[in-house]
């Protein structure tokens, strides 16, 4: 019997498959389809200090093998999350990761302090949402990322993960996050992209730019995981176009410790479950006891 377990910093997951933030709500919707305890972890929708109504519709646009979204972090705010959603999430039987976003580094500290007392296993610092207007989002920024992590680090003893954007100072931001105390890096959030509705001649989204996700971006995300793996110490969590167990294996071979599934959940509500089963079979058929042997194997000469 191979072990699917993975270690992310101080945290042990039963397998490397997680639901990605913002694509799995607070876990209740997919509970209707399958027993969520089969997953390694779920990342909750990103929450902010105060409730946000998010961006005006339309918020979605389909592209070739991809999805543009401009949700804009609609969420009920940290307080409601902790009081109303988290207790229900806890019953799902798997590791719960809170995801937080703020305008200023200090917001992350305040949010982390609030989560610190709550029953979650880790906190993902989302410094990479492309859909929050007017905040001057310009991709990964080392200085800002360091400030955010330091602020959160001072406010909690829980494991901190940092979710980076796939453009800008990616490597510098990764190193800065690690230096400031991140236990893991999630690579990456959606890519900034856009669409124009040719029937109106206008950008589809009020914000113009939106985030591109789905299979289309897989080769781009894989590149970043591969490039960062030899350069950072902390575990990498891959995100970007991962929809099959083969995709997951590809990212693990590039160096990822675990994977997050976002858009895949929309393509098939059982996507993550099927992935866990596929990975188990993969290890069995290859006669591998654990992930160590193949993690990062694409780097070996």
């Amino acid at each position, binding site marked *: 019997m191979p072990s699917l377990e993975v270690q992310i910093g101080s945290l042990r997951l039963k397998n490397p498959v997680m639901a990605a933030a*913002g*694509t*799995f*709500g607070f876990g209740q*919707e*997919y*509970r*209707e*389809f*399958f*027993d969520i305890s089969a997953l390694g972890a779920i990342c909750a*929708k990103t929450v902010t200090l105060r409730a946000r*109504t*998010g961006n*005006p*519709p*339309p*918020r*979605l*646009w*389909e*592209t*070739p*093998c*991809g*999805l543009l*979204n401009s*949700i804009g972090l*609609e969420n009920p705010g940290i307080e409601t999350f902790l009081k109303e959603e988290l207790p229900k999430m806890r019953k799902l039987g798997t590791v719960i990761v809170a995801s937080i976003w703020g305008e200023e580094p200090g917001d992350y500290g305040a949010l982390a302090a609030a989560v610190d007392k709550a029953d979650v296993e880790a906190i993902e610092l989302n410094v990479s949402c492309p859909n929050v207007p007017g905040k001057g989002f310009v991709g990964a920024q080392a200085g800002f990322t360091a400030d955010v992590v330091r602020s959160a680090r001072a406010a909690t003893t829980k494991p901190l993960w940092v979710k980076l954007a796939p453009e800008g100072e990616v490597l510098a931001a990764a190193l800065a996050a690690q230096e400031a105390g991140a236990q893991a890096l999630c690579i990456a959030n959606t890519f900034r992209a856009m669409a124009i509705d040719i029937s109106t001649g206008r950008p589809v989204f009020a914000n113009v730019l939106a985030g591109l996700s*789905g*299979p289309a971006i897989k080769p781009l995300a894989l590149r970043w995981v591969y490039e960062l793996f030899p350069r950072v110490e902390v575990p990498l969590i891959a995100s970007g176009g991962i929809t099959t167990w083969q995709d997951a294996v590809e990212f693990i071979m590039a160096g990822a410790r675990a994977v997050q599934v976002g*858009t895949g*959940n*929309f*393509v*098939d*509500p*059982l996507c993550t479950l099927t992935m866990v089963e596929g990975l188990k079979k993969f290890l069995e058929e290859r006669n591998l006891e654990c992930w160590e042997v193949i993690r990062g194997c694409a780097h070996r000469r």
Partner: protein
Amino acid sequence: MPELKVVRAPVAENREVAPGVFLLRLEGRFVAEPGQFFMLRAWERDPLLARPMSVFDLSPQALAFLYAVRGRGTALLANLRLGDQVKLWGPLGQGWKRVPGRIALVGGGMGLAPLLWTAKQFGSPLDVYLGFRHRPWMVEVFRSLADHVHVRSEVGAPGCTQGLVTEAFSPRGYAACYACGPKPLLLELHRMCQEAEVPLYVSLEERMACGVGACLGCTVWTRSGPKRVCSDGPVFPAAEVFFDALP
């Protein structure tokens, strides 16, 4: 306990019932309340997303959808042949709830799709109003279910009164009205029902990714804040969602 299943169902029928409008019947045992929908896909990786489709009809052996060919997804659906497999999950969303008393179902064009199963489940006393741009279609199946079926054609058609469905319709005397169709129709119905102080329930459409309430992609603004069409709707009280549309 998981209650929703993702299934593959074979096509039992896929027939063009009007220009560009198809009736798709899938074999299998399904359940659904009036106004609910399913997410459907009959392709691999592209188009990426499943398509939301209202329940048109239901029997112990099969589930039927009525759809218009609009873009790539529905064009692929139209290509399906007997025995082809369709992947689907549902029933999803909050459908319509029957109000006691005489009710009216109003459909504009494809908006009639969710009304048949509704008429079947709600039963008399019930009137149906259907509006079409050109020639009417799928009208006959409503005749045995409704006390009265009023049909209008915008440009006129043989044997059919010319005009807008809103000209045939008056909310007075109904306990409630249920409508689906293009936004301008829904807004006009809303105006009429507000005036007559008759509750109106409308079924909305938004682009969807998950279809189950997880992605927050299908949000509409309502009197009580943002709501998800897929899981808080698709049926909403008109007064909830058209609060800002009135003079």
